């Protein structure tokens, strides 16, 4: 064994010691200020580094000539051809006067798919995504990612997205390291994320780096924007349903900056104008704020705050519902030396839900929350340009109130807490013959903590014993070792194959009732009964691009299995019992499929086609005779066509067309008369298909640049050919009809036009 290790080390050092060229330089602003943390990348490779606090950088390139790209928030991206190693490279970056317009964090969107060593990573470029048509004039990052391969919508009226056969509850959404449990406004009609506040995002579709965990399907890592340290910028936008603004600028020039954005819907103002709805409340808002500070020569700190809220209320508060997220994070970056840096994060996040009904003699209240406290340290060490080691640890304290309800004089509550410890180590190595390897290992210990009741539960859901543990005592511990491995082999300048294996665990579970996620879904944690979800995924793919990167193609395939998948028992729903475990059955899931993607990156016309062929199945004892059955999120075919055309500097347009196979549907197979009504017998869960979903959206943007500002009019049409897509399907006995049953489809939207106006200065 020792010999093998020695051989591997020798082999690695040999392939990494081949002759390379080291380039040195300094980056400054036009005013002469030395710029720290500027991203420097070598074109056509994954080489990259950051400038230090004095604006100095060093990067080792394979050969000359080559091209370097310099990008930094608030400055225009700059590219420079390097043909020889002579003097130090001096680069001056110019301020981006349209800083609030768009941020291109990923230098080349098309290249990232082929260049990233990890398979199944989607780099979301906000500048591109913001051109995709959106409902009611509101840009929506969650809706936009659903146009990418392997990512599917749950349908109209839901903000949940499904990744490679997973459920929305199996996605981890991180906003500057803070977990966001509910990503929708208005029960999913709009995303909770204001596009103005987002800098960039990466979606890991199953293969994820070792620093991420707690997700069986995907990690969606969103980074919010930092403000410009040079100048002030403002932006305001008004649409049919909501208005928003953003502002950024220096607090202390070149030392500290702020960014703030807010959005609020105002359609309740229209309701107030009507006699019938004047006393109703129906609104949402969200606020993002970030302060960025340079602390000395080697340190930088970000403080982020996010809050989103939805409010609904009927006359005199007879019915009230509200929910939302609150998150705050402190992130401290420290450069220990030329090759070693660290990130320390302290994070708080909270999702809560409340509903109340007080009418006639009815007096009911229900509430729930998930509260998360997290401390994280991540150290990055790069002994050479082609070798990156990451080491980190994280402690999470979670308090989760699955439900509390007040029903007349009865108060019932299920609230539990847990502690999670995780540590990781990863090693990314690039060879000079086209092979890149990323290896990682994550270890997780999850402690279920006492202080609230735990149970032993019988087969029929009856409570056999109530177990009491002192607050803070460990009820049960779960351990998980999660290896991660990815490789990329670039066998030709613009072609590569990738593959990987990933194991993850997830300790926060959420079960939705009818395959549609919402803020009222019940959450729970692993307990003495509920086990962590364990997912294993393998994937392989081929990526190619044309020589000038004008076109790119990818084909990926995956297979994954998930242990400890939970479903509701027949006849049970989220309100059946306060003890959540009484209503659940445990099983396993599997998903497999193929994803095809083709994209045109350059020219007046750009766009892409994505197609996903997939299967998703579950096997749960007690459902469908204990056989494998179609999961509620199974969709066989999923197609997205996206086209964007720039007519001139003033006008551009975009159009999207999506098609999904209908959702798996539980419908009756027989009917009978009982209780004086017609009742239905369901022979098979998810045994039917709803009609297919398809629609086309278009939008036109007119941009006018004035001396001191930019004005944009956006005109959009959602569902341009007015196709009513299924939202709810119901059944009604009708013996007057020959068919005997009336099947009714309820749809949410027909054609929806929209207009919005934006001004930036």
């Amino acid at each position, binding site marked *: 064994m020792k010999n093998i290790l020695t051989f591997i080390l020798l082999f690695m050092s040999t392939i990494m010691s081949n002759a390379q060229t080291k380039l040195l330089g300094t980056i400054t602003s036009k005013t002469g200020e030395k710029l720290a943390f500027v991203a420097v990348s070598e074109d056509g490779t994954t080489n990259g580094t950051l400038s230090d606090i004095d604006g100095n950088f060093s990067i080792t390139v394979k050969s000359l000539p080559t091209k370097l790209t310099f990008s930094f928030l608030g400055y225009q991206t700059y590219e420079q051809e390097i043909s020889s190693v002579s003097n130090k490279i001096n680069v001056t970056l110019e301020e981006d006067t349209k800083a609030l317009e768009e941020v291109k964090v990923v230098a080349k969107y098309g290249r990232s798919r082929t260049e990233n060593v990890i398979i199944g990573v989607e780099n979301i470029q906000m500048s591109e995504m913001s051109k995709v048509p959106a409902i009611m004039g509101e840009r929506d990052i969650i809706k936009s990612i659903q146009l990418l391969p392997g990512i599917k919508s749950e349908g109209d009226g839901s903000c949940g997205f499904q990744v490679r056969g997973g459920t929305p509850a199996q996605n981890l959404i991180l906003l500057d390291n803070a977990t966001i449990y509910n990503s929708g406004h208005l029960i999913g009609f709009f995303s909770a994320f204001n596009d103005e506040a987002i800098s960039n995002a990466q979606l890991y579709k199953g293969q994820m780096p070792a620093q991420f965990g707690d997700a069986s399907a995907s990690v969606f890592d969103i980074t919010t924007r930092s403000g410009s340290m040079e100048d002030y910028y403002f932006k305001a936008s008004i649409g049919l349903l909501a208005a928003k603004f953003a502002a950024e600028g220096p607090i202390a020039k070149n030392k500290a900056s702020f960014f703030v954005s807010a959005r609020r819907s105002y359609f309740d103002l229209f309701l107030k104008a009507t006699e019938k709805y004047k006393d109703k409340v129906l609104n949402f808002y969200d606020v993002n704020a970030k302060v960025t500070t340079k602390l000395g020569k080697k340190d930088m700190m970000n403080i982020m705050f996010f809050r989103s809220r939805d409010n609904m209320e*009927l006359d005199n508060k007879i019915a009230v519902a509200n929910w939302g997220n609150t998150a705050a994070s402190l992130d401290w970056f420290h450069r220990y030396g030329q090759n070693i840096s660290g990130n320390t994060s302290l994070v708080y996040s909270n999702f809560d839900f409340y509903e109340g009904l007080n009418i006639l*003699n009815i007096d009911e209240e229900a509430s729930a929350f998930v509260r998360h406290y997290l401390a994280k340290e991540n150290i990055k060490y790069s002994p050479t340009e082609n070798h990156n080691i990451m080491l980190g640890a994280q402690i999470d304290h979670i308090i989760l109130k699955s439900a509390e309800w007040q029903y007349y004089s009865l108060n019932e509550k299920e609230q539990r807490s847990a502690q999670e410890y995780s540590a990781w180590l990863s090693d990314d190595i690039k060879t000079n013959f086209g092979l890149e390897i990323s290896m990682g290992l994550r270890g997780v210990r999850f402690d279920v903590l006492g202080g609230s009741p735990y149970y032993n539960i019988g087969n029929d859901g009856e409570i056999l014993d109530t177990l009491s543990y002192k607050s803070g005592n460990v009820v049960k511990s779960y351990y998980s070792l999660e290896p991660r491995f990815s490789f990329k082999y670039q066998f030709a300048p613009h072609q590569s194959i990738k593959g990987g294996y990933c194991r993850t665990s997830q300790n926060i579970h959420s079960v939705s009732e009818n395959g549609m996620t919402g803020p009222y879904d019940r959450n729970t944690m692993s307990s003495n009964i509920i086990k962590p979800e364990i997912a294993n995924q393998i994937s392989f793919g081929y990526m190619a691009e044309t020589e000038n990167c004008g076109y790119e193609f990818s084909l990926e395939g995956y297979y994954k299995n998930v242990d400890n998948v939970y479903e509701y028992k027949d006849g049970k729903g989220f309100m059946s019992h306060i003890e959540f475990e009484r209503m659940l059955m445990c099983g396993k899931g599997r998903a497999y499929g193929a994803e095809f993607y083709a994209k045109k990156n350059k020219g007046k016309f750009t766009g892409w086609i994505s197609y996903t062929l997939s299967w998703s199945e579950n096997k749960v004892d007690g459902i469908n005779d204990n056989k494998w059955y179609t999961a509620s999120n199974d969709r066989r075919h999923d197609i997205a066509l996206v086209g964007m055309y720039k007519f001139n500097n003033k006008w551009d347009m975009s159009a999207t067309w999506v098609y999904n196979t209908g959702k798996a549907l539980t419908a009756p197979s027989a009917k009978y008369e009982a209780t004086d009504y017609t009742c239905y017998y369901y*022979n098979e869960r998810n045994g039917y298909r709803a009609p297919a979903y398809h629609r086309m959206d278009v939008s036109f943007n007119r941009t006018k640049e004035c001396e001191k500002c930019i004005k944009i009019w956006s005109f959009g049409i959602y569902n341009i050919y007015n196709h*009513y897509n299924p939202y709810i399907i119901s059944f009604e006995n009708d013996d007057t009809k020959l068919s005997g049953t009336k099947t009714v489809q309820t749809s949410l939207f027909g054609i929806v036009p929209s207009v919005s106006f934006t001004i930036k200065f």
Partner: protein
Amino acid sequence: MKNILYFILALILFSSCEKEIELDYNDIDPIPVIEGKLTPEKVEVKITKTRNMNDSTKGKGLECESVILTQLNGQQFVLNYDNDGFYRLEYDFLSNSQNTYMLNVKIDGVTYCCSSTLYPQAEITEPRFVWTNLMDWAQCLEFEIIDKDLNTENYYWYNVYKNGEIYCWAIVDDTGCDSSGIIYNDYLCYYDSDMENDDDAFIYDGDIIEMEVKSIDQQTFDYLSELQYGNNNPKQVFKSDIDNKKCLGYFTAYNPQNYKTVYNKTPHKK
């Protein structure tokens, strides 16, 4: 509690649209359905089978091998076939209140068995119709059940008939009931603004409204609760003597409290 979600859903569906679609329903072999009711005066059991979703002919009653009722003391009653799947027996069960009864039904060689306990008659206040403003003026049926035994969990099932036809049913238990023992019931019947649509959902002046409130056992309550939930099947309450033989329906013993009135619509305040 689910009502709140219905209100939210109502808001969402404000701009929605409905259309009839075709669905290719699967056919399955018919499954026996037993609906057994025992009151202090009689036992009535109806035997039918399920029919396919595309069958527009109402299910006909079936004659089976045997229907036997057994008391806790072992006394057995054989129910005789009447007509259209009904088996009936008239007998004075009132003296046996709080007794548990076992119903055995043999269909196609398989015996299905279910038990139920007879509880004392429920005490209710006089039902009345009241207006409430919930998005719009809505007519609610309101009454109270007086829970006599606060030390045990009690379950109730009420049916409302309009001109002899079933209008609605609901179940309620004493969860959250305070020391007064009053269980409040409010059933949303219809919105005033919808009255221009002629529909079975509305009640008109002169309609005869009858109500039957029953004390039921927990098994029946759970069955009805799960049946009401929809989208999947309630837990099977009839056990068979052969494994995996399915049977739908329920058997319940109850002592009904009845109420009858003629509906007279009162105007609501603007």
